[in-house]
């Protein structure tokens, strides 16, 4: 791996940037919800304090293969999200190869799969219900998510992320970005698509049996999902090139605006039942996605 790749993985937008950004975005999520309810909301360092506190909890020891698996899932989620962040085309000179957007989609999907597996492995009835809901929701939103990514790829005739970055005049690109934005609430388990972690019904869903450091890793993974998914949209709409400091600041700003927007929507909506969530994605969002991809293919033939 070359130096630029290492910088992507460990400095920006990887580990060194992503972990504080994850805490910052989680703070933004809670703060936006608080402001929507006319509350003051948590202090800036709250997600950091939560994380440190969880590291200091003494958890009951489990033995056997389940214990190892339950420790493995959150770690795997965090690692795969860091890998996904390293692939983001924030700097044009980063690691980029043909088909890396497919790898990005796979890495973004891994935390959801780990979440489902954690629910089934924990043996808790609430975990199992939450895992089933997450699995169904993941099938529902991934149809739209994949179609949106493919739409963006078709408008540029490539699966290379470095060539997908930046805005174009092609409407297919913007419809694709809209499709990705529509899927972010379900991927982050935000209202109105929060059935899989509906605390009033199933406590914390798949995370019910988690405690201490492993729970802290899950919370970190949630923050990293914020950074990765909003970062993907930001890198698709921001013009590439220019001063790198300015570009990085714009990248954070655009991501953070999405965090505030999606949290405000989450605070302003009630929870959909599972079948309503599926109907939303497989009917309305899917119509948009299919229109987007067919128009993108049509435009490709015409030009």
């Amino acid at each position, binding site marked *: 791996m070359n130096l630029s790749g290492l910088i992507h993985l460990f400095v920006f937008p990887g580990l060194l940037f992503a972990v504080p950004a994850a805490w910052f975005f989680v703070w933004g999520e809670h703060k936006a919800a608080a402001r929507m309810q006319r509350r003051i*909301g948590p202090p800036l360092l709250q997600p950091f304090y939560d994380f440190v506190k969880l590291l200091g909890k*003494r958890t009951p020891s489990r033995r056997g293969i389940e214990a190892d698996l339950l420790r493995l899932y959150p770690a795997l989620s965090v690692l795969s999200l860091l890998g996904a962040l390293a692939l983001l085309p924030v700097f044009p000179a980063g690691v980029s190869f043909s088909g890396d957007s497919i790898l990005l989609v796979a890495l973004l999907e891994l935390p959801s799969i780990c979440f489902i597996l954690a629910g089934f492995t924990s043996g808790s009835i609430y975990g199992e219900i939450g895992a089933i809901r997450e699995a169904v929701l993941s099938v529902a939103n991934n149809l739209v998510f994949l179609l949106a990514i493919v739409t963006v790829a078709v408008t540029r005739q490539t699966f290379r992320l470095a060539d997908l970055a930046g805005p174009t005049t092609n409407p297919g690109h913007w419809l694709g970005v809209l499709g990705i934005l529509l899927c972010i609430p379900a991927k982050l388990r935000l209202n109105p698509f929060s059935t899989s972690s509906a605390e009033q019904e199933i406590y914390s869903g798949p995370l019910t049996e988690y405690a201490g450091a492993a729970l802290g890793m899950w919370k970190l993974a949630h923050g990293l999902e914020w950074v990765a998914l909003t970062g993907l949209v930001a890198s698709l709409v921001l013009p590439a090139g220019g001063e790198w400091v300015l570009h990085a600041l714009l990248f954070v700003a655009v991501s953070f605006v999405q965090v505030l927007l999606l949290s405000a929507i989450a605070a302003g909506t009630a929870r959909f039942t599972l079948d309503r969530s599926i109907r939303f994605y497989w009917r309305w969002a899917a119509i948009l996605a299919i229109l987007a991809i067919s128009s993108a293919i049509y435009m490709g033939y015409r030009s």
Partner: protein
Amino acid sequence: MNILKKLMHKSRCKSPSLFHLNTGSCNGCDIELVTCLSPRYDVEQLGIHLEGSPRHADILCVTGPVTRATLEAVKTVYAQVCEPKAVVALGSCPASCNVFAGSPVIEGPLSKHIPVDVYVPGCPPHPDAIINGIARAAQILAERGVREEAKGEPQK
């Protein structure tokens, strides 16, 4: 090493997660506890948040006089909360059984069954008093954490 301990102490003070356990309360104290989360009192400023699972919690908030039917649940839930932990008894019922004292179906007061750190008396207590009690419990919890880490692992 010292600075890490200070950070841990501060984090425990700043981030108390509550688990709310009703042991046969009349719902008065429960409503007052939920009021603390409302815009008027907004305990999220202090980092206090309610959790759905006792495994995620630091502070157990108990309301009610501990009826016979809930006694086992109290012990189970207390055991599920990971160390370091603290217990806040909300209202007069867990402290003294209140008007239910002497009833054959009441197993209270709470301190007969699990160690209680902070009592918030009142029927029901004022939300300000509840917030004060939780903040004190967070202090107690943080200091207990430091003590136990200095001693090594606890015997349990």
